[in-house]
């Protein structure tokens, strides 16, 4: 029983960890794109 508890923990923490990791990466990518858009847009305006 104890081993099965551990197996279930590995399953739950592992799979949710993968999702958490990739969700955070998704947010980081979106945030990076947003910053790039803001700063490059300002650069273009400055050049004008």
């Amino acid at each position: 029983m104890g081993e099965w508890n551990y197996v279930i923990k590995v399953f739950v923490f592992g799979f949710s960890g993968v999702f958490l990791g990739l969700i955070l990466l998704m947010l980081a990518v979106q945030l990076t794109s947003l910053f790039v858009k803001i700063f490059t847009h300002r650069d273009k305006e400055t050049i004008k």
Partner: protein
Amino acid sequence: MTEFSITTILLKTGFFHLTAGHVIMWLIGGAFIYLAIAKDFEPLLLVPIGFSIFAVNFPLAPLVGEGNLIYLFYHYGLEWEVIPCLIFLGIGALTDFGPMIANPKTLLLGASAQLGVYITFFGAILLGFNIKEAASIGIIGGADGPTCIYLTTKLAPHLLGANAIAAYSYMAMVPLIQPPIMRLLTTKKERMIRMKQLRPVSKLERILFPLVGTVVIILIVPDAAPLMVMFFVGNLFRECRVVERLLKTSQNELLNIVTIFLGLAVGSTMVAEKFLKPQPIFIFFLGLVAFAFSTAGGILLAKLMNLFLKEKINPLIGSAGVSAVPMAARVSQKIGQQADPKNFLLMHAMGPNVAGVIGTVTAAGMFLAMLK
């Protein structure tokens, strides 16, 4: 001077030590070489692996024992974790993250396509494997050879040969395994969904991605750092466009050299005494289960996302979340075009495809964090 006679010389030849197991392993090695040459199944790996299986199953040949030639490839290449990480350098240098940066939602599909990894982990426990062995078998579902090898070397090195062969064999069979599952889980209407063209991704975003990815993934799963660092540095070589020589070496010469050592080292683990047991058969069966569930996981999450999204995604791109780059994406494109010949899904499918690589490495890192 050592005394010797005809008898002692004859006893030192391989003939007197040959067993049926050795001959069976020659046939298995020969079968891999045949599949690689005649059927074009992952030839870059199956040719060296097949020949290595063939070669290491000669009695008395000093190849695999400690200090011998192929043992050195195995010891320094795999036990020291060098080869999978160098392969990741090459993969990173070859990977275009543009489609994923343009549509970051596809990262979720890469995560859901790890479903097979965890279902198979359960299945392997039920079949009597211990928890570390089960994790190393489950990761086959990620369809990522180097990660499978990396994790197996750390958790269950005695299963390395069977796991690596299963992973690469099923990767070669993606075009056969995935289409029936894709058709089963989607309607024709869903397969015909056309997706909006991806936006262009700026050079700055491409350069920043490997840095951002390194920060996020290594902070969450430090155990995945060796693979992720090499993957992202390879990608930085590609995107920064100022280290052309390093990029070419990572993509070509280095990757090819390391692939030779990888094939020989993996094949050398398949000696008759260790390999001819029921375990490899179970592993091949579980590998198939893993691939099927990973394919289904990606498709089902895409369908679920469509319930909430204004701009629908074609669920066929979900199946590309199993890493197998770029074959799984090509399968999505092919099945999509069977439903609508003017539908082009390839670039959309590349997003989950490369996200699947990161997903599998994260899954491996989670296993290491909990089981090492």
